[in-house]
Every structure is written in structure tokens, then in C-alpha cells.
């Protein structure tokens, strides 16, 4: 690994995270109308944007800072796959049971 290259990559990711967070903060302060008024599956476009930006930040932190991108494919999958299976499952159970008890929906 070339010396300059890997530290350069770290700083590039830092600036990406910096810019994404700044965008989030500005959207959080100004809350543009066209984002708050449009709903997709019951969630405003603004919240979809926040979640998308957050997942993007998570991707950069895990892949570059935690070097998961440099690990074996099998390790990558065994860490990431449970996240994508179990977290939606958790939310699914929460919502279904809640609607069964009449707490929501």
C-alpha cells in the first residue's frame, strides 16, 4: 500500500462525512417545504433523505475507517448480512405486534 494513497483516502472520507453532516444540519434547520410536505409510505421525503444520508455515512465509516472493505468477502458478508436481515425483521415484528394490540395503525 502506498503511503500517500491510504492517508489521502482517509481524509477524502473525512470530507465526505463532513459535507454530508453539514447537509443534514442545514436540512434539519431549514426543513424545506417540498421535502416535509411530500410523503412516501407515510414518511416525509425529508426523513427519507436523512435516513439515506445516514446510511451513506455508515457505509463510508464501516468500509474505510473500519477497513471492512479490505477484509475477505466472507467476513464482509457475515457482518453485513445479519444487519440487513435482522434489523428489518425487528422493525417488522414491532410494527405488526403493535398494530395487533391497536397501539398503532
Amino acid at each position, binding site marked *: 500500500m502506498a*503511503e500517500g494513497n*491510504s*492517508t489521502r483516502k*482517509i*481524509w477524502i472520507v*473525512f470530507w465526505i*462525512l*463532513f459535507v454530508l*453532516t*453539514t447537509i*443534514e*444540519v442545514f*436540512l*434539519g*434547520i431549514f426543513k424545506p417545504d417540498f421535502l416535509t410536505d411530500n410523503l412516501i409510505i407515510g414518511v416525509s421525503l425529508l*426523513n427519507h433523505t*436523512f*435516513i439515506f*444520508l*445516514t446510511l451513506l*455515512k*455508515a457505509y463510508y*465509516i*464501516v468500509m*474505510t*475507517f*473500519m*477497513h471492512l472493505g*479490505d*477484509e*475477505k468477502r*466472507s*467476513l464482509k458478508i*457475515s*457482518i453485513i448480512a*445479519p*444487519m440487513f436481515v*435482522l*434489523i428489518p425483521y*425487528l*422493525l417488522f415484528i*414491532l*410494527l405488526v405486534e*403493535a398494530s395487533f394490540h391497536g*397501539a*398503532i395503525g
Partner: protein
Amino acid sequence: MIFSNNSIMENTVTKNNLWGGGARPMIASYGKLMMWFFLMTDALTFSAFLGAYGFQRFVHADAWPIADEVFNHFPFIHGEYPMFFVALMTFILIMSSVTMVLAVHHGHKMNKKGVIIWLGLTIIGGLIFLGSQAWEWYHFIHGTYEGALRGADGSIAHFVSGTTSEIIRHGEVLTGEVAASFIASAQEIHGANLIYNEYGHPLFANFFFFITGFHGFHVFSGVVILVVIFINVLRNTYEKRGHYEMVEKVGLYWHFVDLVWVFVFTFFYLV
């Protein structure tokens, strides 16, 4: 990242006995692999907390405070600055993640001096973050000068500014008899704790203390572990061992703490 002294064994292991012990199937050391699996389960714990938070918020949407209106203070400046302080905390944690990854980088190159500098900066970043969180908690617990009225049923109302007979409860203005009977049985409260919350539903305060507290405890343990590693670096422990993999493993934990904050920031303060 593959250390030069690791690759000898990998080459001699054939596919048949890869999982038979004595080998490293994913080309990651035992410690690093277990750190990854620990972090994966910890991520599920935090998902459960944030999921439960979102659910309760949805159920009590009418009484749920808006985070912008609760956390709008900034040290040494008067007035309302929503998001600024928490954004600063986020930048501090991202910055300490960068210094951590640079410490790991210098560890790979066996550059002790580099590790000392960047690890030291990471510890300082962690301490600043913990201090900021203490400040945020202090203000949330003490609340505002005006405070709020807590009715006999536990609902929270505020006086319409300039009056002592009209109140706003859950966004609805109450006047006359209704307001008078509410005020008569209400109790004046300031700030938030586990029983009541002047800004709205008490569950908001409960979740705030629990989730940011659990995260803060992770940061605190992270700082303690970093200090231990820092002392080991100074005492040449890893120099003698021939590699700085311990710095890398602790680094994984530290980045995870940053990662969790990214999500807490989104779901508590933005959404």
C-alpha cells in the same frame, strides 16, 4: 489489512481443514473477528433501542417534543441555536474517528511516534465529546426558566406568552373554565427527569437518558480502553510483540461508537 507475519500460515492451510482449528478462515485474527461479531450484536442492541424509540414516538405523536426546541442552547452564547451544539458534537466524534484511523495506519507501519500522537488526539476528542454530553444533559435536566405546567393526568401545558389564564396543551389553546381547572390542579415543573419532562411526554426524556446514556457509556469505556492501549504503546508492549493489532481492534470499537452516534444524531435530533 494483512500483516506480513500472518500470511505464512494461511498459505499452508488447505481448503479441507480450513475450519478444523489452527487456521484463520477469514484471514482475520481471532481477536479481530470476535470484535467484529461483538460490534454486530451491539449494533442490533442499538437498533432495538432506536426502534422502540420510534415506535413510542409514533404512539405519542401529539405529546412528543420536537428535539430542535429542546436542545437549542450553545455554550457561552445566549439565544436559540437549534442543532448547532449537537452538530458540533458530531463533528468532534467524526474527527476523533479520523485521528483513530490515522493511529491504526501508523501502527501498521510500526511507527510508534505516529501512534502516540494520533492516539493521544483521539483520547482528547473522546473526552471533549463526553464533556459536551454532560453539558447537554445538564441543560436538559435543569430545563427552562419559564418551566411548564404538569396537569393531574400527567399532560404538559405551557402558558400562552403574556397571559396567566390561557394555556397551550398538545398544540391546542385552552381558555376560560377549562384552563382555570387545569391550572388549579397543575404543578409547575422545570426540566426533565425519569418521572416528568417539561418539554412534553416523559418517555422522550426516558429514551433520551437511556439511549444517549448507553452510547455515552460506550464512549466512556472506549476512552478508558484507549488510555490503557496508550500506556501500552508508551511501554513498548506492541513494539516487542511485533505488531500493533491491538490498536486496530480498539480502533474498530471506537469507530463503532462514532457509527452509533451517526444514527442517534439522525433519529433523535433530525427525524
